[in-house]
């Protein structure tokens, strides 16, 4: 097929010449009107008071926004750095104290333990949560003020000491300041929390959650080795402990969660019949202090401290 002849192109209409419109505006005409100056003149506009005020407010708002962003950086990252140094110092002080003074080994009878001498702001124990990884370790200091908690997890004054009957209670930050308790909500029943003092290791295990209390005996989890010695306290210790479960979320005013028998302020349980509990508290939800996240655990084992010995629980997780 022979190529088609090109179609004739439509004839362009002759270009219409638009006559140039004479610019008859007088440049000086708008001089005292700022709004029109901007694009038409090279010289910067003279700043009226209103313009200055609007710009000032805008710059102030931008500055405030930057300050707020900077505060977030401070809260989430910088406090971690500051606290890391303090935690290191506290740990170093604790290590040198432990290595310098020789102590008599703990008595064989677990009910007769020597009391630790707790000084506010000083570390007295080390804490490990193996399921968070073997780099999760903190020195626990005495006291729970802001200053103490910057160093690390803090022991509520007047609550039990490690391994004592009653409630060994620790508070820790969830965000910033080293965030020791950031992942506390991830602890499951039977997870180990190991506490080391100068003379002893104590292994605490998280109690069954409230959803697991009913039917714990038939739950296959209760047969696991990690759950030896862990059972809902209401079944082993009676109704006084009915509200003590692995995890609870409470209002900040609920100080009774760290009572010797949690939720029992006017204790009717004599000290020698009290369970050896560990309670951890932190803020909830993350980045807020509306509520508190509480984790209860019970002591299942203890070992004397010996050179080169670490409890087998430390390798869990």
């Amino acid at each position: 097929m022979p190529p088609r002849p090109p179609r004739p192109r439509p004839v362009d209409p002759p270009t219409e010449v638009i006559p140039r419109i004479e610019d008859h505006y007088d440049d000086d005409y708008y001089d005292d009107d700022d709004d029109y100056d901007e694009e038409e003149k090279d010289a910067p506009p003279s700043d009226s008071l209103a313009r200055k005020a609007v710009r000032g407010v805008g710059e102030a708002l931008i500055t405030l926004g930057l300050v707020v962003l900077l505060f977030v950086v401070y809260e989430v990252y910088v406090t971690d750095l500051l606290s890391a140094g303090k935690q290191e110092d506290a740990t170093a002080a604790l290590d040198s104290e432990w290595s310098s003074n020789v102590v008599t080994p703990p008595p064989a009878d677990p009910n007769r333990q020597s009391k630790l001498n707790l000084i506010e702001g000083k570390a007295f124990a080390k804490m490990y949560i193996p399921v968070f990884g073997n780099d999760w370790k903190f020195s626990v200091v005495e006291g729970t003020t802001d200053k103490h908690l910057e160093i690390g997890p803090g022991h509520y004054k007047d609550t039990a000491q490690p391994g004592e009957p009653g409630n060994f209670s620790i508070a820790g930050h969830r965000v910033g300041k080293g965030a020791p308790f950031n992942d506390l909500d991830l602890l499951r029943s039977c997870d180990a929390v190991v506490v080391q003092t100068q003379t002893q290791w104590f292994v605490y295990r998280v109690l069954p959650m409230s959803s697991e209390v009913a039917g714990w005996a038939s739950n296959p989890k209760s047969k696991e080795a990690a759950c030896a010695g862990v059972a809902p306290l209401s079944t082993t210790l009676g109704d006084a402990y009915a509200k003590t479960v692995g995890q609870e979320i409470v209002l900040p005013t609920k100080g009774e969660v760290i009572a010797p028998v949690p939720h029992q302020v006017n204790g009717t349980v004599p000290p020698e019949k009290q369970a050896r509990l560990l309670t951890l508290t932190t803020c909830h939800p993350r980045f807020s202090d509306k509520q508190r996240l509480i984790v209860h655990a019970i002591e299942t084992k203890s070992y004397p401290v010996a050179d080169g010995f670490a409890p087998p629980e430390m390798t869990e997780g």
Partner: protein
Amino acid sequence: MYGWIWRHLPGPLFLRVIEAVVLVAGIVALLMFVVFPWAEPKLPFNNVTTE
């Protein structure tokens, strides 16, 4: 504000840039080490203890 500061920094351009950086660093340090530590306990973010 920023324009006013810039106009009042003395010296040639490169010196003014250095001055501005020093000024910003100083203000950030002031916030990080003085203002924020003071303000933080007053804000409702990080209370972890029960009463």
